[in-house]
């Protein structure tokens, strides 16, 4: 698996299939943990499946199907990312988060995430095979573990199912195209992952360190790989990808685990 050249039509099918698989995956996980979200949303987590997820998937779909100017496509993602973070922080303003702080968080998180999505979308086009889906699954599992230990257990099924959707999409891709066509996937996953981490940080007790480490795990691919793509073998690139993403995930899970174990209390089973 890996070196098969994919044509334009295959890529178009992939950019339609990925948002559907990811959306279905997230919804299955969410329904399992929470049931049907109410409208209008009352708690912050309900904004994810009802507004943020559809918005991200639609932009992913539109950008995949239509060839926009690069600057317009990137601008659309920046707008979606900023709005998504603002929507998720809104329920805490002004009761427990001052408007100024919320704006600072939206800008402080939104701009780097936007930059990473832009860089990742460029790198993604140059990567092939199942590397990206496996890395995404690894990051989602790590994020789930940290969210669990950060006290937001009901966010875990949706996060895991997000990764599950990616795995299912990869299997479909292998079945039909004999390779994993991952174009258009990583941006969607990064934005949704950041959404889950924002919920963990601002509505549970996911520490900032773990949030940053997990949020950096996917962009780390680009930081490490940009200089080596085209100069290294497929297996070397795959190795560096797993290493670049795996280290921050491993560090985040280790820190979370140590903090959880250090909580001075007896065992806890609800």
């Amino acid at each position: 698996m890996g070196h098969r050249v994919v044509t334009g039509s295959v890529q178009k099918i992939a950019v339609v299939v990925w948002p559907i698989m990811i959306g279905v995956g997230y919804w299955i996980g969410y329904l399992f943990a929470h049931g049907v979200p109410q409208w209008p949303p009352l708690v912050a987590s309900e904004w994810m499946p009802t507004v943020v997820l559809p918005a991200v998937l639609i932009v992913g779909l539109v950008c995949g199907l239509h060839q926009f100017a690069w600057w317009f496509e990137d601008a659309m993602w920046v707008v979606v990312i900023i709005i998504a973070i603002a929507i998720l922080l809104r329920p805490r303003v002004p009761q427990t988060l001052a408007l100024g702080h919320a704006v600072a968080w939206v800008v402080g998180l939104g701009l780097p995430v936007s930059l990473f999505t832009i860089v990742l979308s460029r790198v993604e086009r140059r990567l092939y095979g199942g590397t990206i889906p496996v890395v995404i699954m690894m990051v989602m599992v790590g994020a789930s573990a940290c969210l669990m230990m950060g006290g937001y257990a009901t966010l875990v099924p949706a996060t895991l199912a997000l990764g599950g959707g990616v795995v299912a999409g990869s299997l479909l891709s292998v079945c039909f195209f004999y390779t994993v066509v991952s174009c258009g996937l990583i941006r969607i996953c990064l934005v949704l992952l950041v959404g889950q981490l924002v919920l963990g940080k601002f509505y549970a007790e996911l520490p900032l360190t773990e949030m940053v480490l997990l949020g950096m795990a996917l962009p780390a691919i680009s930081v490490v790989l940009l200089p080596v793509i085209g100069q290294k073998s497929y297996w070397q690139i795959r190795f560096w990808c797993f290493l670049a993403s795996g280290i921050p995930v491993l560090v985040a899970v280790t820190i979370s685990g140590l903090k959880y174990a250090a909580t001075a209390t007896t065992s806890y089973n609800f």
Partner: protein
Amino acid sequence: MKQAILVSASAVVITVGLVVGLPGAHSAQSINATKFNIDESHAAIYFRITHLGMSYTYGRFNEVSGSILIGAGATSFDLAAMTASIDTNNGKRDKHLRNADFFNAKQFPSITFKGTGTQSDDDVLHMTGELHLHGITRSVPIHLKKMGEGKDPWGNYRIGYATEFTIKRSDYGMDSMLGTIGDEVDIMVSFEGIRE
């Protein structure tokens, strides 16, 4: 003409009276009522909930505040508990309860109860109050028993109440882990107020 001027003048007087007089009337009502501030060191909100259907887990809120307003015909209560102050004698569980799986303390920092009741002969106040929990407000019938009132050894005038009632946490959108943890929550409240 003279009649028209009189009518206009009356209208102005009535309007001014309404505008100026209403706040005055409200103040007079407030003065007639006696206000008690909740004594936080003698206020307790405990709850219990079943675990696996085998036993009860007990908990409390350590930060409670509010006031009591006793008027001629009715008594009003305004109580608040800070959700972050939950205490079930297990640090990990308290952390989990504070988070979005349950009380969502960062989005809903307090639980409030507001109610007005009339006193019956047996010192019990019957009321239907508004319980605001987890962002949802629902009416809850409550029977508050007056435990006693009088001067304490330090010269303060106190009044004390206690009540017990049951709610369903799912009614307030707190439906995580139903089954493992029960739906019905028994709540026990007792507090003293000190007259201002």
